[in-house]
């Protein structure tokens, strides 16, 4: 489910300690390209249910996490596996592109 709201507080528990890989969508209210990516992320969450956990992190409210992963442009989608970043996807892209990138690390 993409309605998982990630924060600086729950990031370790929900992402870093997660048994399944996690896709994190770094976004903000003011970011228009994020609005393009958001529905795609919802669809990905459904299609990869069980294989990939999907969550959203608001960079304005959770600056510590965004900064510690060097996020300097949004939307950025990062995939975490066993607590490590294994894929960084920056900017709006097609769903097929995202799927190719996700499949390459799952």
């Amino acid at each position, binding site marked *: 489910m993409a309605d998982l709201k990630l924060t600086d507080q729950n990031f370790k528990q929900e992402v870093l300690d997660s048994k399944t890989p996690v896709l994190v969508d770094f976004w*903000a209210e*003011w*970011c*228009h*390209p994020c609005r*393009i990516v958001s529905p795609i992320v919802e669809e990905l969450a459904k299609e990869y249910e069980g294989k990939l956990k999907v969550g959203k992190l608001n*960079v*304005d409210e959770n600056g510590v996490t*965004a900064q510690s992963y*060097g*996020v*300097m*442009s*949004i939307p*950025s989608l990062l995939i975490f596996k066993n607590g490590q970043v294994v894929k960084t996807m*920056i*900017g*709006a*892209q*097609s769903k*097929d592109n995202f799927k190719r990138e996700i499949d390459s690390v799952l």
Partner: protein
Amino acid sequence: MVYDVIIIGSGPAGLTAAIYTTRADLKTLVVSGVKWGGQLMLTTEVENFPGFPEGIQGPDLMQNMRKQAERFGTEFVNDDFTSADFSSRPFKVSVGGKTYESKSVIIATGADTKWLGVPGEAEKIGRGVSSCAPCDAAFFRNKNVIVVGGGDSAMEEALVLTKFATSVTLIHRKDSFKASEIMQKRVKENPKIKIQFNSEVVEVLGESKVEKVKIKNNKTGEVSEMPIDGVFVAIGHIPNTKLFKDIEVDGAGFIKARDHYLTNIDGVFVAGDVHDSHYKQAVTAAGYGCAAALEAQKWLREQES
């Protein structure tokens, strides 16, 4: 099913064309691209689009144009155009794995950011190198940034960045800006903005993100290093014509248009920044979109008679 018109592109040119063709009862498909809406999606306030005395946010303007096109029945495919076959009719337009057929086509693919093309730049896009201050400025709070360019968009980027950054330096290779007077005035009056003329970025340095740039003074030839957190590139745009095989373009890649809307292929029309290297305004793009739509409509009518 065969469409009457397929419009490739969804900026002001494409969406205005769609409003006109659908109101003329032509079956219309817009291939919008994933990043639909064109260059205005990467701006903040648009002050010179007529009809909005207080200005309007670029993305809001595009959302409105899209709604207006949808209201009259325009269909959209929100994916990136991949190829077109104009060698026989109906024309074929491929988007991802799907192919759509149409009696006529309007190319309105616009133009994309022109990058500096210097070492260290490409791999740091999104890691300190950006072409969209409204998107990324907030990540440069209390940091130092440069903006490269001398036109209106460079001025806008610089002004947007002053809301967050400690200092903004405009780097321009010439000794004066070509931006409009009003934008230049705002830039020069802003205490956070410094200006460096006759200067070119020759390299972007840094481990995983931007840390420094090498700047060359093109008058003295002297190269110096400047520690910096962000590089915003606003040196212009390149027309999106690479994917069109049979369409004639000029040396800079712009589609060669006759009478502002005709390409070298009968039934394939053109509108907006993809052929306009001169005005490059939202309102001129919209105007060209209207013209191409009216001409496509006339051409379709002539084909039937």
